């Protein structure tokens, strides 16, 4: 059975509070229940990994946390602010100032260089890093003026991470950041994420299919069939460097 979350954790500041969260997609007559009453928390400064079979609702949950999608019922709050009641403008502002995203397919702007792709975010953020510094954090100092088409997949993903961290977000939400990468490149990307979490204290949630990656987390949240089936905590976080798959 899962180890109960210990009391010490509860004293930590809660970043996300999720209660009975449900999401139903209506496709004509058919209803798809992507989430059926999920409950979880994310604490400040921690790194969690979300695990679960395909279709279990991981992306749906992350998208709702990130203010990209709206729940059908239930409750999500971000630092005490009810996201389910937020307007479109408030959600946009929330994404703009608080959340850093990393996605499986990078979603870079093809017409902008690496540096400019980061500047896209720093230009509109409140308290950003310098784009060069963000790129230095992911080890891309040499490739500032390259367009995405001129970068490898791993490099593109690191640009995406640099873009996400450059605004100094409160939370990082990463949906299969290594999904399109080989294991070696994946490790480099994970190291970047881990470093940001460690050095900047950014609460980070990472979705992955890779059970081995779970070892780098403080806690591992298991989803199945639209519910949180299990939450486990790691005593020690493994460095991505030591993870092999």
């Amino acid at each position: 059975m899962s180890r109960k979350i210990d009391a010490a954790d509860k004293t930590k500041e809660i970043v996300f509070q999720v209660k009975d969260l449900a999401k139903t997609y209506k496709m004509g007559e058919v209803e798809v229940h992507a989430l059926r009453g999920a409950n979880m928390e994310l604490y400040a400064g921690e790194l969690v990994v979300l695990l679960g079979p395909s279709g279990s609702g991981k992306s749906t949950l992350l998208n709702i946390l990130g203010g990209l999608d709206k729940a059908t019922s239930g409750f999500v709050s971000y630092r005490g602010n009810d996201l389910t009641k937020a307007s479109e403008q408030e959600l946009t502002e929330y994404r703009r100032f608080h959340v850093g995203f990393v996605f499986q397919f990078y979603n870079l702007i093809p017409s902008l260089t690496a540096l400019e792709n980061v500047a896209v975010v720093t230009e509109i953020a409140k308290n950003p890093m310098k784009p060069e510094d963000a790129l230095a954090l992911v080890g891309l100092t040499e490739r500032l003026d390259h367009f995405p088409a001129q970068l490898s997949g791993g490099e593109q993903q690191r640009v995406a991470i640099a873009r996400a961290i450059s605004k100094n977000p409160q939370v990082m939400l990463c949906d299969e950041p290594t999904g399109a990468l080989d294991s070696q490149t994946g490790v480099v990307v994970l190291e970047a994420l881990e470093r940001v979490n460690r050095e900047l204290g950014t609460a980070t949630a990472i979705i992955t299919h890779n059970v081995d990656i779970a070892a780098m987390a403080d806690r591992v949240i298991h989803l199945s069939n639209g519910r949180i089936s299990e939450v486990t905590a790691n005593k020690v976080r493994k460095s991505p460097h030591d993870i092999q798959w």
Partner: protein
Amino acid sequence: MKGQVFAITLVVLSGVSTFVMFITTMHSLDRTRNSFYNDYNFADVFVNLKRAPESLKEKIKEVPGVNRVETRVSAHVKLDINGFSEPVTGQIVSVPDDGQPMLNRLHIRKGRLADSTKDNEVVINETFAHAHGFNLGDKFAAVINGKWKKLTITGIALSPEFVLVMRPYSMSPDFKRYGILWMSRKAISRAYNMEGAFNNIALTLYPGAKVSDVLRELDNIVERYGGYGAYDRKDQISHRLLNEEFNMLRNMSKIFPTIFICVAAFLLNVVMSRTINTQREQVAALKAFGYNNVAIGIHYAQLVVLIVLAGLVLGIVAGIWLGGILGGIYMEVYRFPALVFVLKPWVIISAIFISIASALVGTVHSLWRAAQQPPAEAMRAEPPAKYKITLLEKMGVGRKFSQPTRIIARNIERKPVRTMLSILGIAVACATMISSGFFKDSVDYMVNVQFVLSQKEDMAVGFVEPTSYRALYEIKEMEGVHYAETFRTVPVKFRFGRSSYKTVINGIEPDSRLHPLLDSNLKPVTLPQEGIILNDYLGKILGVKAGDMLTVEILEGSKAIRQVQVVSLVKLYLGVMGYMDVKALNRLMREGEAVSGVYLTADNQYQEKLYRSFVSMPRVSGTIVRKNEIRNFYDVQAKGMLFFTFIATLMAGSISIGVVYNNARIALSERSRELSSLRVLGYTRGEISYILLGELVVIAIAAIPLGFIIGYALCGYIAAALQSDLFRVPLIIEMKTFALAAVVVMISASISGLIVRHKLDHLDLVEVLKTRE
């Protein structure tokens, strides 16, 4: 693709409908005219003379080539209409006492011919009747051979001879102030002491008769009887102006459809290459299933045809409908018994052929690429787009660009050809719009130059016969007249080499205060002491240059043939005439000082009284009031102009919406991924709209000045194509026309922008995260 197909449909529709409209109107009018001419025996040749005995008819019949001959008595009269105090003139034409004439038969719309036993019955032409609201039994008066006579309307008719009714040598038709009166030969002969005589001949020719020989022979025969020169249909006012109208329609049917078809082909090209790009994988799959290149090509060609088809069918239907409306507008000026609507199958076939062919030509490149793609390559994702730092940024301008602005600049620079074509497309829309405003501007200008700046008189009084200078002093003495000066008008036929033209020479007083001759720069032309000035259009018809000796056949009085030197050609917008110093003209005529009429200015309050007294003066043949002339010019032109402006605005709107919207949709489909990504990163709807719409705005703004240039050139071409005896359209485009065109482009761009903006607001953010580009 729905919206884009709709936009293309709109443009194809515009092109096809204008094509069908202009061509069917032309064919319909042509057929209508021909059947009117045939059914009502329109004469081939006309002769005016002073007076000849009826017995001369037999002699004329013997002229080789002459078929049927009809003699007539005709006279110009002043009319006096109750309740209409302005001067009105008309032409009386005799109708045989035993009924319908053999040639130029009348189409009786209402009532009957005049009874030959009565001398006060008259049939009038339809436009005149409508202009005054005349009905059968209504009465008006005419001054017939100096005697005031009350006439009763027994019929309202049309004649192939007067399809367009226009006072000879006037600038534009005036239905209210000029009418045709058909009276019995007996009545009019008696009034003019023409019993047993005639002063006008209409005749038809046998097929194959040599017209110039017949004319020469006729001139010889009637010379003794005061002949004013025989002329054939091409010099007959109504016929000539109809011909010119047909030319204009023919030109229009070429210019506008061409523009639309080109735009449609361009839009199709963009849409198809985009479609084929996004369907690379399907193409590859089809190939893997064994479809060959031809089959793939045909598949897409069918799609192109399908897209064109809707616009084609709607365009044909709309074209037929608009053709009916345009035909109706023509029928208000050009009167036929009924408009025979002609829809030639080849018009439909060529509309189909032209639009489909140009659509395929426009897309042939993309079709070819689709067909040629090796399956393996198609299976692979499209290679990532190559971007570069833009020139602007390299020059340092871009330093301060925000990232969204950078995105705009790089997207524009990445597809220079498409960007250029989009700019061109919108520019063409802008140009089309300008061309519609240009009509009004140039007509306004023309009217201002002709009727305001170079005709400063309040009234022009014409005499029945050339008169002595005394008439001037008499008129100057009349109450209310401020100032008066004379003019001399001599009907002539100019000959130069093998060309000839029937018109008049205007003799003007040197330093004329009321009627200065102005050139196209609005500078007064100083009339030379000797020699003649022609307007350049007449110069072109005759093929003369300054310095040439021109042969002048005088068509009144002496009937002499004289030579006169062409001093210069000047550019004038209305009419086709020669101009001389009145003294030089009198010398040329060798008949001493004679005047044809007087221009005068008068006190406003006396004007009506003045022309009432002119009506009762037997020597005065008619009076023209300038301000009526202006108003009338607009009345006659207004409907046609309004219709044209309306159509052109609609079309320009549809092109600019078509091009801008299409552009916007393509941009949206190409950029929706990165725009959604930006939304995910926290960009607001407004901020991403800026990226997409900013690109459109840049293109639209670049298009407008180019549109001005193309518009100017297009108007120049149209102006050249629309030259006619009636007027030469000056190339005048007002600032406000340019402004309006820009506004229409901006509005249609904004409408397209709003539609796209609406779509931007509903981007599915989650969708784009799930797929690779």
